[in-house]
């Protein structure tokens, strides 16, 4: 449990704040390490009267720039309701976790009624987020990549010599 932190003067009693946290893990860690960090964050949120709305694993993505000498990273996305001091505690724990190379939290809304949100979070979602990290998801990089999904023209284009533009960059 956190030490009691006084709520802000604009906080309405009984309402919570809506936060979103994204953290990036090193790409080379095993699945159970991903689960271990998720379990830690889940425990913190649940122990502090937070409500988890969403947990998603975006898989191993190529990052737009290198972070801690890594080109790829496993992205975890959380959406949750919580009160004063919860984000501090989560970020303190993420900072201490070695596989976490980047974390970022934003506040989506204040004074959200917890009853108005239907949480789809359960153990199934939690375990799915642990194993989602294995799949290699390449982000859509350029207009040329989108052309590949476009069926009709593409087949013809590849047959004509000299029209293949090859890899971008």
């Amino acid at each position, binding site marked *: 449990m956190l030490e009691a932190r006084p709520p802000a003067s604009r906080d309405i009693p009984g309402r919570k704040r809506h936060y979103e946290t*994204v953290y*990036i893990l090193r790409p080379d860690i095993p699945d159970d390490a991903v689960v271990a960090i998720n379990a830690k964050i889940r425990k913190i949120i649940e122990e502090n009267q937070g409500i988890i709305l969403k947990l998603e694993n975006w898989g191993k993505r190529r*990052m*737009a*720039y290198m*972070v801690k000498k890594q080109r790829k*990273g496993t*992205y975890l*996305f959380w959406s949750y309701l919580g009160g004063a001091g919860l984000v501090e505690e989560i970020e303190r724990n993420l900072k201490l976790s070695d596989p976490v190379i*980047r974390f*970022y939290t*934003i506040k989506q809304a204040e004074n959200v009624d917890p009853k108005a949100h239907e949480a789809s979070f359960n153990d199934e979602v939690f375990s799915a987020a642990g194993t989602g990290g294995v799949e290699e998801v390449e*982000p*859509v990089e350029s*207009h040329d990549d989108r052309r590949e999904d476009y069926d009709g023209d593409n087949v013809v284009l590849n047959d004509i010599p000299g029209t293949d533009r090859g890899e971008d*960059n």
Partner: protein
Amino acid sequence: MSYKQSTPSLNDEEPIRGRGRGCRFCLDEAIKIDYKDVSLLRQFVTDRGKLVPRRMTNTCQTHQKAMVTAINRARMIALMPFTVVAQ
């Protein structure tokens, strides 16, 4: 009204740019500016990763501010580049 003649035709492949049209987000309120929607944010930066000015995209001030916030958030979690260095 020379600016109307220079309006490029609507094309699905092209990002919507050019004068003569209103703010995309005011015209269609279903489009939400979200820092996770990289394919949308990409249309508001140049190939070098720099922000496209409001006058080029016809975005209104309210939505341009929201767009800049979203792009900066996406940059923080490495979904979008700060800069793209020439190869």
